[in-house]
């Protein structure tokens, strides 16, 4: 159990000086994740912000072996890394590494879903991390299945009218032994979940909340605050599912009004207009439904 910062290794897997925007929630979360992931480690990265900002040839931010192949197939490429090393170790020609796959919400919820499903079903031993900034940020803020109702993006100028896909439920339907949500404000919760994920013999999954100042139109210094508020408003509940047992890691008995979270982000300006009250209600219903479902599941699987 990690409870103090000095319990994390001094040597970081990712260097400073990369090209991420100031206040990038994904980079903060990934830095924390990499501090907790056991070595030796190979990272496999889907196309997206993280790939672009960390690998501008001839520079690299990666101090560990790192592979980027394409957008939709990070789970398949990581499966190959796992299978290859497994066979090589058996034949005395190589050694096993821990394997972590990174993808954004587009590379997980949308275009990467098939490869993810395949990897989960086949049971490769790896941790798949989805850093969810709730839209295609690398291409300039287009809606994804991870975009919540009411959010403005360049392809939902009037606010998204559809639900956010429940990626955790989809992943869990594959029977994975461990899946968890996390956000960078609750860093102890996050790093311990990463460490735990690597103890399972099979695929594990983390859904990580990643505020995006550029895409959400927020101040760079609000990222950590937003990743706290998201939990306190039940917008992004912290929970984990271990061998089918649901546990809510941060019980939000009295949620703060979600408006407090929304009004800090200009992407929700459209939603907060009086004529869009129905959309705001849709988002609130979705949040409440999610929370109720989680509490039911947690109570049913003590």
């Amino acid at each position, binding site marked *: 159990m990690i409870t103090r910062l000095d319990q994390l290794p001094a040597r970081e897997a990712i260097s400073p000086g990369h090209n991420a925007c100031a206040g990038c929630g994904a980079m903060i979360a990934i830095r924390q994740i990499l501090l907790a992931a056991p*070595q*030796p*480690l*190979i990272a*496999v*990265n889907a196309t997206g912000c993280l*790939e*672009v900002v960390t*690998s*501008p*040839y*001839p520079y*690299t931010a*990666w*101090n*560990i*072996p*790192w*592979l*980027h*192949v*394409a957008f*939709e*197939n990070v789970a*398949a*490429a*990581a*499966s*190959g*890394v*796992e*299978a*290859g*090393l*497994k*066979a*090589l170790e*058996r*034949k005395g*020609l*190589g*050694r096993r*590494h821990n394997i972590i796959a990174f993808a954004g919400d587009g590379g997980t919820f949308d275009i990467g879903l*098939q*490869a993810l*499903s*395949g990897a989960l*079903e*086949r049971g490769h031993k790896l941790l798949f991390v989805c850093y969810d900034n709730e839209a295609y940020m690398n291409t300039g803020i287009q809606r994804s299945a991870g975009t919540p109702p009411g959010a403005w993006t360049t392809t939902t100028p009037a606010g998204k009218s559809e639900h956010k896909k429940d990626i955790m439920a989809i992943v869990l339907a594959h029977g994975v032994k461990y899946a968890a949500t996390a956000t960078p404000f609750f860093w102890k919760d996050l790093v311990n979940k990463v460490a735990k994920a690597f103890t399972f013999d099979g695929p594990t999954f983390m859904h990580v909340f990643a505020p995006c100042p550029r895409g959400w139109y927020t101040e760079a210094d609000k990222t950590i605050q937003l990743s706290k508020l998201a939990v306190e408003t039940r917008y992004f509940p912290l929970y984990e599912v271990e061998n089918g047992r649901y546990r809510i890691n941060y019980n939000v008995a009295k949620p703060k009004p979600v408006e407090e979270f929304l009004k800090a982000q200009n992407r929700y300006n459209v939603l907060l207009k009086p004529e869009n009250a129905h959309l705001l209600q849709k988002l609130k219903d979705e949040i409440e439904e999610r929370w109720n479902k989680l509490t039911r599941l947690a109570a049913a699987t003590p």
Partner: protein
Amino acid sequence: MLSQKLLQLMSGNDAIAYAVMQADVDVVAAYPITPQTVIVERLSEHVAAGRLDAEFVPVESEHSALSVCVGASLVGARVFTASASQGLALMHEMLYIAAGLRCPIVMAVVNRALSAPINIHGDHSDMMGSRDSGWMQIFAESPQQAYDFTIMAYRIAEDRNVLLPVAVNIDGFTVSHCYEGVRVLDKDEIKSYLPRVPRPRLDAETPMTVGAMFSPDYYHIVKTEQVKTLQQSIKHFKEAAKTYPARDVQYDVTHVLNPGSRVVVVGLGGVMGTVRHVARNMDVGVVSVRLFRPFPVEEVRQQLENAELIVAIDRAYSPGAPAPPLASDVKTILQDMDLNIPVWSVVCGLGGHEVRLSTVEKLLNSAVEAAEHGVKTRIQTYITEEVTVT
């Protein structure tokens, strides 16, 4: 002299699976598609029976099959996949990446027509659609060649001076499902022919960033380097052929019958067997291209320069282009040689359409007659029993 026990009855698909098993690959990732499926079935049997110590990754699509191969190849594993037609088309994106990341992957492509209309039978439109992906492309005409070229493919791909993926093509059904006695090598011969050559790989000891973002200042450098490597890999094919342990066969980038003839036929794949059979007693030269990419320009040039008429046989269209793929290559070579030799561009065998001896006879007779009369007509046609070329 090879011993009798090494001759086994195999289809083209069986032969490839057997070669992959003997090559001691570490990872097989594949998805079923007709007419390639038998390769995947045989390999899963070899793995299940313990004849092959490999991870068999039964992926959920061809795109993932090649993605798994790329990941596994970059940690140093010897990998294999097989595909055809729609499956190869689904892999299209990954083909370029496998070549660009310099993965020595070997893939069997059991050539099949592309939909629509959907058709499960043989032609070359699948590989021609991926022609420019940067892979080495070898065309085998028989189960024996399928076996030999698959073994050779690993030697070429894994050479430190190559490190490029290789596609071994066989015609759907006419080669993949046809049986013949195949002479197989013994395990020790293969082991010394295919040594484990260390290459840069993803390992925590030597961290490496693979698949980085390249700006316009750097992209062209890497691409040009890659293309140069592919061009010069022709000599590695020749080396692999020369050192191949089966001493009674001597492969080369092309096979030539009746050199110095007035009419020269150039083509690829199983249909060339039919052409050679018809041409054997005629004044017709036959150049069967074994290595299609990189194209053996020099070797083909030598066979064309004294011809009076050239017949280029394609099993694919290049819709809207001035000529189909192989004819296009032939015409480019002639242009570069300042030679004005007429070329008959013939497309045949689309979607498994049978190419009969009588059809080829008619074609070659017309060509010989035209050459005798100094006919300079250029022809582009799809050839069937009914179509007479004049």
